[in-house]
């Protein structure tokens, strides 16, 4: 085990897969000479060269569209979107092409591509650059949507995504690149589509993913000092959604809080809560609570922005409500 940052974990995953498989290459805005806007691909251009580390024009539709094409003819492109907010300029190709071409042509085509995109708020970038629109993409059958909350999960899941024969949207969080965690030194992968228990407890279940995991872990620490034992289930993958660990935990605690950074309406919380009601209604001891972003385009002002984003205190308050 080594303690490394999320940035290092993601960078290592790509580096190792590029070393392992010559059909893997990375393309996107500033991934090459610049070294990656968030420095994830620093050193890649010098090591792998311009053929495998491609600086693209600022043209998201053709970044994703051409990655789809290259994948269909046998390569394994990693297409980087500088931020997930720019995915809207490539929406057609993500949800209408990558997600559908295999099915629509009777299974003739295989699209082994990864779309890496950075999301999340809290960095005073204003409303257009601070979004967490993960659920929009998770809505579409045909895509796989992964968003890890720890460096170890990020590395293992990204390696699986690169090896996957399906299109995977891999969502990172801009405020988590410095997050440190233990990562195995040896080679490993983690399966896409498997939720996991990140902290064991018996009083209440928190269901979360990505940045929500950090908030939930902090909340659980504070609540533990009061004797409240919180269990945390990390979804890690939004589609396909693995509810089994959630339901198992809920049957034990009978109480649930769902924590996400995106807006509450039609969100991850809405989906998970519905499934809990559908699959474990008899185990309910309290209404399921959701912690999410206030329904406002995120403002620039730091105080206002933080007020709109979910905080550790919000998670604690929600847990108290269901107890």
């Amino acid at each position: 085990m080594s303690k490394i940052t999320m940035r290092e974990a993601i960078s290592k995953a790509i580096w190792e897969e590029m070393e392992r498989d010559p059909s893997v290459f990375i393309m996107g805005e500033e991934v090459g000479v610049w070294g990656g806007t968030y420095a994830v691909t620093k050193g890649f251009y010098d090591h792998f060269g311009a053929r495998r580390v491609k600086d693209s024009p600022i043209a998201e539709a053709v970044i994703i569209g051409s990655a789809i094409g290259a994948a269909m003819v046998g390569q394994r492109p990693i297409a980087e979107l500088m931020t997930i907010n720019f995915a809207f300029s490539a929406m057609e190709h993500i949800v209408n092409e990558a997600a559908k071409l295999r099915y629509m042509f009777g299974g003739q085509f295989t699209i082994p591509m990864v779309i890496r995109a950075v999301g999340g708020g809290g960095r005073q970038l204003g409303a257009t650059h601070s979004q967490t629109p993960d659920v929009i993409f998770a809505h579409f059958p045909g895509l796989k949507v992964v968003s890890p909350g720890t460096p170890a999960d990020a590395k293992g899941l990204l390696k699986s995504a690169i090896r996957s024969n399906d299109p995977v949207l891999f969502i990172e969080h801009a405020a988590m690149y410095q997050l440190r965690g233990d990562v195995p030194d040896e080679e490993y992968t983690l399966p896409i589509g498997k939720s996991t228990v990140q902290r064991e407890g018996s009083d209440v279940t928190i269901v979360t993913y990505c940045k929500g995991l950090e908030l939930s872990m902090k909340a659980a620490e504070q609540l533990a000092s009061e004797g409240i034992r919180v269990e945390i289930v990390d979804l890690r993958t939004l589609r396909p959604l693995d509810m089994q660990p959630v339901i198992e935990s809920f049957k034990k605690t009978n109480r649930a809080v769902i924590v996400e950074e995106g807006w509450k309406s039609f969100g991850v919380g809405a989906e998970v809560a519905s499934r809990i009601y559908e699959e474990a209604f008899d185990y309910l001891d309290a209404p399921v609570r959701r912690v999410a972003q206030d329904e406002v385009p995120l403002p620039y002002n730091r105080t206002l922005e933080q007020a709109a984003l979910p905080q550790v205190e919000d998670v604690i308050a929600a847990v108290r409500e269901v107890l």
Partner: protein
Amino acid sequence: MKKEAQLDLYHQMVLIRRIEEQAAELYQQGKIGGFLHLYIGQEAVSTGLIAARQPHDRVITAYRDHGVAINCGLPANEVMAELLGKATGVSKGRGGSMHMADASKNFWGGHAIVGAHLPIAAGFALGDQYAGNDNVTICMFGEGATNIGFFHEALNLAQVWKLKVLWVCENNKYGMGTSVERASAVPEIRQKAEGYGMPNSRVDGMDVMKVYEAACDAIEKVRTESHPYLLEAVTYRYRGHSMGDPERYRKPEEIKQWQENDPIGIFRKQLVSKKTTSEKALDEIEARVTQEVAAAVEFAESSPEPELDDLFKNIYAES
């Protein structure tokens, strides 16, 4: 081009025409659902174009795709079965009229969102460039697709990265009911390639041999000089945009005028006047096509529906 090859092209053009006439009838009978966009009038474009490709060259087109499918060698039976949504269709009944493909024939579809397949075509060429082979990707689209951003992103990337794509614009004058003059800043589409420093030319898309020669020339340039090229084929569709077209945007005289330049009629005249073949031989081809179309309908109608149990098959390659 040798006599046999020319007769083969004639056969392909007539087969496309008759299959589509038959499809229109089946549509009226309610046997074909969804949208049905007929290629009738434009047969010379894809027939001449595809004749110029090597088998390893990739082809991708928009939703008016039955003709290209036939030219690429997809069996008429399976094309008709797809129109009827059958399990034996080229896309197993999952795609329909607008989404036909056969990867084994290097025909990559039939794409229904205007312009969206152009970035994907750039990607085929990117994949081939990465692999280091000399495949050319032939990407067909209508003039209406040249006004959407995808076109510009794709042409720019192809030129910047020197991707081997032959962009083929089928300028049939109308995007649905809006004429090219009302929708495009320049009605001569090849001019748009100039903005990307891309070689380009324009060809009479009603003359199959002219299209063939222009396509041979363009494909050769793309392959040997390693850069994209835009070929504009001026053509005309005789039928509506789709089956539900009120045709308020053009006069019957205009259609009639173009029908006097029917691509099949032009080619027939050429074949006979140059003594390549006889009227009788061409009539025999037409008779053969009638049988092939009847057989295709029989095959499609007697084919099974897709299994309900297979509804969820092929959403993913891996579960």
